[in-house]
């Protein structure tokens, strides 16, 4: 009798433990699913993305294409073999840091660009907070309409001009939010 009672208690305790752990898994799963929205974006290699981009830093990898509808206060870092195209809706305060061999817009037909040549776009992207000026700030003696070939990073602006507080740059203010969505497999309610 005591043995039977002991086995029953063991089973109850075991099931309770399993349910507790299973519940923890469910809880972890539901809680860890929220994602931080950031305006620092990377276009994965081999993909084509169409987008309006506002107040963002975007790295365009080799073999990928970013087609921009409208661009304001952005910095694009384009690797050789990457493509930055579009801008049908306009451009404002936009900087492009491109490697040789990157496909970038023809500035003769666009305004609002500043284009720099860099050795390594991914390094420039990585070090952008400490070594590059924000998109809406014009470097000293620069011509915002023309090409300013710069090798490497650093454009001669006092480092104290800005700090590393991302909010000063508006990087977390991603205002290009979609208004609606259409699913390929699920019908909308009337």
């Amino acid at each position, binding site marked *: 009798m005591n043995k039977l009672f002991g086995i029953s208690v*063991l*089973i109850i*305790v*075991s*099931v309770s*433990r*399993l*349910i507790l*752990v*299973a*519940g*923890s*898994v*469910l809880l*972890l*799963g*539901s809680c*860890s*699913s*929220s*994602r931080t*929205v*950031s305006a620092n*974006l*990377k*276009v994965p290699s081999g*993909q084509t*993305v*169409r*987008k*309006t981009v506002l107040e963002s830093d975007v790295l365009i990898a080799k073999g990928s294409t970013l087609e921009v*509808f*409208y661009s304001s206060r952005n910095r694009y870092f384009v690797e050789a073999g990457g493509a930055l195209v579009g801008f049908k*809706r306009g451009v404002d305060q936009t900087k492009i840091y491109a490697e040789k061999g990157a496909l970038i817009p023809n500035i003769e037909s666009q305004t609002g660009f500043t284009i720099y040549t860099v050795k390594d776009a991914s390094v420039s992207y990585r070090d952008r907070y400490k070594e590059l000026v924000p998109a809406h700030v014009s470097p000293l003696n620069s011509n915002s309409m023309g090409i300013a070939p710069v090798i490497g990073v650093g454009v001669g602006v006092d480092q104290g001009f800005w700090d590393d507080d991302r909010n000063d740059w508006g990087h977390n203010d*991603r205002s*290009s*939010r*979609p*208004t*609606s*969505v*259409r*699913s*390929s*497999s*699920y*019908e*909308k*309610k009337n």
Partner: protein
Amino acid sequence: MKKTLMIIAGIAGLTAVSEAQFAGINGGIMLGGGFMEDPDKGYGFLQLRGTVYEDDAVSHTLFVEILGHSDDAELEFLDLAGIPYYENGEISFTNFTLNYELEAKLDSAISFYAGLGGGIERVSLDDAFEVSVDSDRNFVGQAFAGFRAKLGKSFFAQVGIRHLWREDFGLLTDQFVVEDTTAYDLSIGFRF
């Protein structure tokens, strides 16, 4: 984030298995995939299993299942002039369910199983940069049955059918109709 979630689930699962062993429960992990009828989509799943009772004829098992599928989406934006334009996106569906299963052993190698479970379905909308735009959570229930075959001492494979009860979901300002569906799956597992 998905990888992080899977790692967390894996660690928790291994913890559950070791706990189960400690407490006299046989643990197991199962991986599989399948195809649902409505929508016409494939899915994958992971089960973390603990058998609470087993004899020569039957066994009772509890398991946590994470099941996921995705769907292409088109996001509509308005530019500064109020003119709409569209981008590609993705809707991800992830089910977290707790399930009970009864297994009837037909002979030493083949068994029939059936059970039911319930939990949460998380619906997440990502834009082209895989940044989460919106999400929703709903109830999901399922009943399932199938046949299982032992492959050696610790491995087993199974073929099964399940019926999923799902709720409609909402993303942004849009509401979507979800039909209950039947699904068919194949899976392999390892028993500790």
